[in-house]
């Protein structure tokens, strides 16, 4: 392992979907060398991996498989690399989704992504307060009401991996963590100062790990 890089390489997995530029820029803002890539050599070299995603679960899984990003995600998670799934990128980590029945997800986390409660507008397209239910380093430094921007009609199932929820027609999973795998249903890269703190904390984890390893 080389000495701790002042600018840790973070691979933002690019499988051709949506706006990845904000995710990249928010990471760069906190000193990461963030690259949009599906190049195995770069991803394997990365100190952290981010899996973004917007759109439908099935369409995203198709694109993830077509570009080989599925194998890279599995590899990074198994190697213990800090990993962050965002929005549909979070949902893809699970085994399946009610959005696209019969379509397998990455299966990195157990369970099936569920439709958010009825009786409220779909999608939830708004800012909402995130209630931290289990300590996660990604919420460090965020005090009082934590407002994040959500755009989704489906969400991860309740489990002991849940680190935060929001209230939208009932409790909805906002973030999860298991070991090195972190995931947020909201868009931290679109959640102004609170979101930037969250991203900063993720980059901080990467730096701490890199420093320890060197």
């Amino acid at each position, binding site marked *: 392992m080389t000495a701790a890089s002042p600018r840790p390489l973070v691979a933002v997995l690019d499988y051709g*979907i*949506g706006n990845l530029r*904000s995710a990249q820029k928010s990471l760069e803002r906190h000193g990461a060398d963030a690259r949009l890539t599906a190049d195995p050599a770069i991803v394997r070299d990365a100190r952290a991996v981010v899996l973004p995603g917007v759109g439908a679960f099935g369409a995203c899984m198709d694109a993830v498989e077509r570009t080989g990003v599925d194998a890279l995600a599995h590899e990074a998670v198994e190697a213990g690399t800090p990993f962050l799934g965002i929005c*549909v990128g979070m949902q893809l980590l699970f085994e399946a989704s009610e959005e696209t029945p019969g379509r397998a997800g990455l299966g990195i986390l157990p369970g099936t992504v569920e439709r958010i409660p009825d009786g409220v507008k779909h999608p939830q397209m*708004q*800012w909402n307060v995130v209630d931290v239910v289990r300590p996660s380093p990604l919420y460090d430094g965020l005090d009082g009401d934590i*407002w994040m*921007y959500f755009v989704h009609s489906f969400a991860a199932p309740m489990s002991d991996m849940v680190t935060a929820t929001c209230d*939208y027609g009932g409790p909805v999973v906002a973030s999860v963590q298991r070991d090195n795998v972190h995931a947020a249903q909201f868009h931290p890269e679109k959640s102004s100062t609170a979101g930037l703190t969250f991203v900063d904390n993720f980059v901080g984890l990467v730096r701490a790990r890199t420093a320890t390893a060197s």
Partner: protein
Amino acid sequence: MKTARIIPCLDVDAGRVVKGVNFVDLVDAGDPVELARRYDLEGADEVVFLDITASSDARETILEVARRTAEEVFIPFTIGGGIRTVDDARRLLRAGADKVSVNTAAVDRPELITEIATEFGSQCAVVAIDSKKVDGTTPSGFEVFVHGGRTPTGMDVIEWAIRCEALGAGEILLTSMDRDGTRDGFDVAVTRAVVDAVNIPVIASGGVGTLDHLVDGVTEGGADAVLAASIFHFGEHTVAAAKDHMTAAGIPVRPA
């Protein structure tokens, strides 16, 4: 918790904000990115850029606006104006826009909505509808106009909104052309009619002159979000003041 969004809108021509803006301390008040950053700091929930660039050779400038905004502004932003194809949408989204808004092109070729939604997801497919009150020409009494409100289509606003949702639209940006620029407040009747007819979020637009108008858009119109331009640009009210006003009226919003 359901929260209302406050969305400042900027008209951009060849990369510059067209309506005069008088934030005294801005280095460049004509720079849309600088204004968007200011609105982010004030607590705006999203920003909309409406590209009114007429000449096609200057259209590249809006891509540059999207790129720079994505580097400096960390709230969602939508770009509308002149988007006619999936390729147009793709360029803007890859440049950093979170959503694209289609209007005339969607009326000309409704499949465009489906194409954008299929390719990039419904969440980024906004349909802008320009509404005018008409006497008896359409069932609801509101007709869809295109080409910046100049051309009647004969289409009913409510029926078109329902069709947009079925085609894959993720959000409706509803502007009352009767109220736009009047500062008399939203047309809450058409807002309410559209909100009741569709299940996707509706942004009310056109006519805001006071902070009470923003409240009316949500309480009377039922809108999920309210869009305004001049009251913010001319420094009459800050977004933060608008949010305080909404909170005082009992409407949950993200505090500034």
